[in-house]
């Protein structure tokens, strides 16, 4: 069965008329890693937000099916419990909510929604500390409020830690490479690669090919003006790096 089926999706901002996503179709099977590349304004971030369920967008046409169910009917927390995870391009700072507490409430909310038993505090702490160590997330960061005062790299590592703790079946990485130096990028990519599994799929949204040196995709799609204009394997990314997006932005016009 397909994990995700996006069929002829059209999306606009609620208070604007112009479609941002204009007839996008994409099928993702478990275990696959899809890269979506495209210039600024092609609709990459909109796609990630629509899949995560952010308010402010309106789907005017098409459908999104996740594990056989209508994803668009679900609230963001239901989507998360069902296995959708969006790693934000700009992770949000939440003052006053300790990272550890946030992770615990999030995981146990998801488990509760799925009818699973909540994890005990000692089991939970052990699991988080183990995963945090692998991502160079210090115990001090876990005590601090979510993302508050974290550097760019720390924020991205914290996002990947959340992903590792919540174990989603579909990971959407929105420009995870932005603002990272090469060392930070490597840590993040290692974290992501460690999560690759036959049951888990990933959609890696990026402007640059660089990230795909570390997270090697099975498929690469070029997004331009709200639709996928070309698909290929990892070599397409290299081609884009060489030639730029000009060819696609013009052909899609």
């Amino acid at each position: 069965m397909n994990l995700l089926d996006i069929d002829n999706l059209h999306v606009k901002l609620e208070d604007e008329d112009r479609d941002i996503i204009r007839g996008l179709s994409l099928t993702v099977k478990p275990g696959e890693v899809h890269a979506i590349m495209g210039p600024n304004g092609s609709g990459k971030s909109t796609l990630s937000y629509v899949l995560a369920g952010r308010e402010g967008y309106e789907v005017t046409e098409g459908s999104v099916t996740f594990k056989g169910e209508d994803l668009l009917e679900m609230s963001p927390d239901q989507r998360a419990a069902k296995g959708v995870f969006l790693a934000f391009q700009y992770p949000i700072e939440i003052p006053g909510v300790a990272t550890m507490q946030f992770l615990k409430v999030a995981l146990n909310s998801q488990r509760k929604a799925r009818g699973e038993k909540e994890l005990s505090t000692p089991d939970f702490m052990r699991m988080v500390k183990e995963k945090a160590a692998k991502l160079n997330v210090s115990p001090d960061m876990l005590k601090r409020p979510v993302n508050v005062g974290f550097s760019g790299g720390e924020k991205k590592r914290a996002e990947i830690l959340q992903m590792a703790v919540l174990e989603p079946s579909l990971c959407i990485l929105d420009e995870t490479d932005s603002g990272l130096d090469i060392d930070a990028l490597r840590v993040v990519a290692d974290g992501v690669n460690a999560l690759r599994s036959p049951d888990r799929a990933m959609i890696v949204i990026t402007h640059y090919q660089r990230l795909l040196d570390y997270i090697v995709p099975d498929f690469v799609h070029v997004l331009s003006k709200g639709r996928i204009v070309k698909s290929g394997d990892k070599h397409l990314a290299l081609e884009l790096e060489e030639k730029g997006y000009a060819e696609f932005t013009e052909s899609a016009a």
Partner: protein
Amino acid sequence: MSTVIARTAAEEALGFQLPNRRMEDWRWTDLRQLIDKPYPPRQHVMAKPADVERLVASSLFAGVAATRMVFVNGEYDAKHSKQANAFVESTAAIDDPVNLMNVAFATDGARLRIEGNVDTPIELVFISTDASPRTVATRNVIEIADDASATIIETHLGEGSYLASSVMEIRIGHNARLDRIKVELESHDAVHLAHCHVIVGRNVTFRDFTLTTGAKLNRQNGTFRFIGEFADAKISGAFLLAGKQHADTALVVDHEVPNCASRELFKCVMDDHARGIFQGKVIVRPGAQKTDGKQSSHALLLTETAEFDAKPELEIYADDVACGHGATSGDLNHDHVFYLKSRGIPEAEAKALLIAAFVGEAFDTVHQDGIRTALEDFAARWLTEHGRKR
């Protein structure tokens, strides 16, 4: 002006002209209009022992080890008190209507002199039992000796309809530490008018936290005077208001000498038609150089009908100081709510978590774990009742 305005029934019963909106400090809290029935003073009310027991037990800190001093309907209750009064004189200036009324009507109050390091918190419990509407007034004087340290809790509780007038005079000696935690948990049919005068000596550490959540009408004045250098005062508070509650806190922090630091932080959560007001004035007197005075008030409005007004004022007569103020008011941040939801936390829980986090910052002033936990537990219960009903 007072000669031409006829006294209201409430003023008639008190024998005092109440402050009104034509007075700048009272523009949002016009007591002539808001106090709409007589609360005659100096009424002797015999309390039923069961009522007293119940109210004493309903203090948020009933489970915290403390030396208690209980005042019932404005009078010292020896049976429920472990601490007796000392002889300390009232010295604060009697300069405003709340003070004037209190001086005229106070029947009793705590008189304490603290020496040495007092580890066990002292809880002053002020109780008003259910009886016909009346004014219940206490005037309290606390002296913290040089080099002494203490934690003093003030709990105000009650049932039925009354006007509680509470004045607290605190003098903190040199090198001393005082933590003051006040909880205003009056009956929802009560009026609470309070004034707290604090004189802060040299090299003092003073931490003050007030939770305002009871009473239909609350006005709390505070005057904090720095009279010795190198003192540090943290003054914080939380409002948890709902229904038609009205709470107005007006503070004056007066830096009379150089090298002192003051921090004011108020976090206000307003539900339904509640109205919160924070007026904060920081004065830096001539010569009070190196003053570090910051003030901020932040409100979270859970409904469109709730209201928050802030009036920050800085009066600075010295040129080498760092002073600032900030005030915000608004709804929960939608990006925060979405971020939590995107991680699987349902909307109601996400909001409760965010509101608790918002208020929680004000609790940071409370360093005693047991006391802080009791405050957090209360806030959590309040938020469950009010924050989640939507």
